């Protein structure tokens, strides 16, 4: 136990002196890095805009309240589109991620080279936000909810693929050995020994991603990929903040409902 003697009276210390100095040095280095970064940000900021931020925020809020409820009816169709983008996009993503996860898992992959390729696809898909995929796809397949669905699917591949291959790597090996020893083929082993073990994880991951995708789908319209984001973008460009507020309330309600559904389903399967 580290003890410091002050005038022959032992005083308890939490750490050894050397360790304590190292921790202080770490904090100091971190603090210096933070100040350096803050300076870069500060140099690139026009501080004159900041002085009236309070009044800006106040007037923004003033124009948002009360929300313009009259457009609620016209927002129902975009909302349905948003839900479709999220749901169909998730389904497409899962369809591609599923075989990919088996290629990427160490215990089921047919060849290490295939595993490296699958991991590469998963990482690339995961690193790039759905909104960036949407920007790209809008230039390729044209604006609309089709681009949104593909964007959601492309982003979901990495997420579902990663969590699923980790689940596959964590399975119990005994059922696999038992089936292999009866002479079952590779596909039979996958279907009857691996699949039942990852089924709960698979259902949980899918619903979780669907929940995230509902949130992401609400913003895809900002780059032209359909859904309620289109209306939001139009309202923002018209500075019609009361309409923006209505969209916010709808998004908030949709997200709450999807989160509730996802929590229920995950609770039921796990």
């Amino acid at each position, binding site marked *: 136990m580290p003890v410091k003697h002050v005038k022959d009276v032992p005083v308890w210390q939490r750490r050894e002196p050397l360790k304590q100095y190292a921790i202080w040095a770490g904090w100091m280095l*971190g603090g210096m*890095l*933070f100040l*350096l*970064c*803050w300076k*870069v*940000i*500060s140099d*690139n*900021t*026009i501080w004159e*805009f*900041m002085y009236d*931020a309070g009044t*800006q*925020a106040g007037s*923004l809020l003033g124009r948002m309240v009360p929300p313009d409820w009259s457009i609620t009816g016209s927002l129902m169709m975009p909302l*349905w*589109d948003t839900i*479709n983008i999220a*749901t*169909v996009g998730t389904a497409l993503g899962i369809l591609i991620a599923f075989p990919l996860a088996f290629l990427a898992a160490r215990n089921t992959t047919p060849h290490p080279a295939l595993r490296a390729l699958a991991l590469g696809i998963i*990482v*690339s898909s*995961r*690193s*790039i*936000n759905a*909104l*960036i995929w949407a*920007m*790209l796809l809008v*230039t*390729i*397949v*044209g604006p*609309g*909810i*089709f681009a949104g*669905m593909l964007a959601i699917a492309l982003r979901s591949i990495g997420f579902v693929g990663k969590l699923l291959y980790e689940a596959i790597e964590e399975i119990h090996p005994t059922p696999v050995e038992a089936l292999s020893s009866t002479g079952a083929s590779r596909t039979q082993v996958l279907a*009857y020994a691996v699949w*039942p073990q990852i089924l709960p994880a698979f259902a949980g991951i899918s619903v979780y991603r669907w929940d995230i995708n509902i*949130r*992401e789908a*609400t*913003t895809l319209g*900002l*780059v032209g990929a359909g859904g309620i984001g289109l209306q*939001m973008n139009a309202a*923002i460009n018209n500075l019609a903040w009361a309409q923006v507020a209505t969209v*916010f309330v709808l*998004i*908030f309600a949709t*997200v*709450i409902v999807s989160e509730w559904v996802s929590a229920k389903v995950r609770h*039921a*399967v796990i």
Partner: protein
Amino acid sequence: MSSAGTGSASPSALEQQRIAHARQGRWRPLPLVRSQHWRWFINLSVLLYVVLAWLSIDVNWSRVAQGMERGQDFVGAFLRPDFTSRGGEILTGLWESLTMTFTATVIGVALAIPVGLGAARNIAPMPVYFFCRAIIAITRTFQEIIIAILFVTMFGFGPLAGVFTLAFATIGFMAKLLAEDIEDTQKEPLEAIRATGGGWLQWINYAVQPQVMPRLIGLSLYRLDINFRESAVIGIVGAGGIGATLNTSINRYDYDTSAAILLLIIVIVLMSEYLSGYVRKWTQ
């Protein structure tokens, strides 16, 4: 799943039928949903949804065919990424993104710790608990990009709006997970420090903090990673970072530069993932 399996066929009859089939060499695994009616209902509603969703998609195939050439261009661009012709802008953007990420994570975590303490049921009184949970709910619901639009309107274009956006999003994420971790702490050390007559700060510092520190560090690193990825997005609406450069290059169909930026993002995310895995192993 078995909760849906209360149907007409009694389990024993079903069981006998399966055994009979298996004797004839036609063994099948148990169906996921036991009742046949439920299975039909679920299949039909999925089919109905797919039809409805399909009707709402409006694909302009001639536009897609036109775009295919661009699609090939884009895929090809990954084989010949162009780091140099817009090298200066890419470097400035990346540097800005990285500084924004770090600053925002530090500010966000610093603000998330008090909120997280307040949102833990076992150490916060009821009114504080509800207040902090409300903060978490609000900061978590909206996507970073929506917050960025609001902050850009308030603070003007530039990285400062981006820093505030990412810090704002970090609060909800970190505070929620931190509060859950605090609620999972063992209560013996908490009681022990209380019993010695330690004050509130000593109580937090010596009983709670050591228990949640490894997870707090892990989560902060994870959030650093998320913030970097998000910083590539919020630039689209003018909140600074690499996103603006990326957006410009995509709109110009300059896919070689876009591919270079995307590859850089992927490499940085990969590196930070390795690093955080290493640090997490070291702290636990």
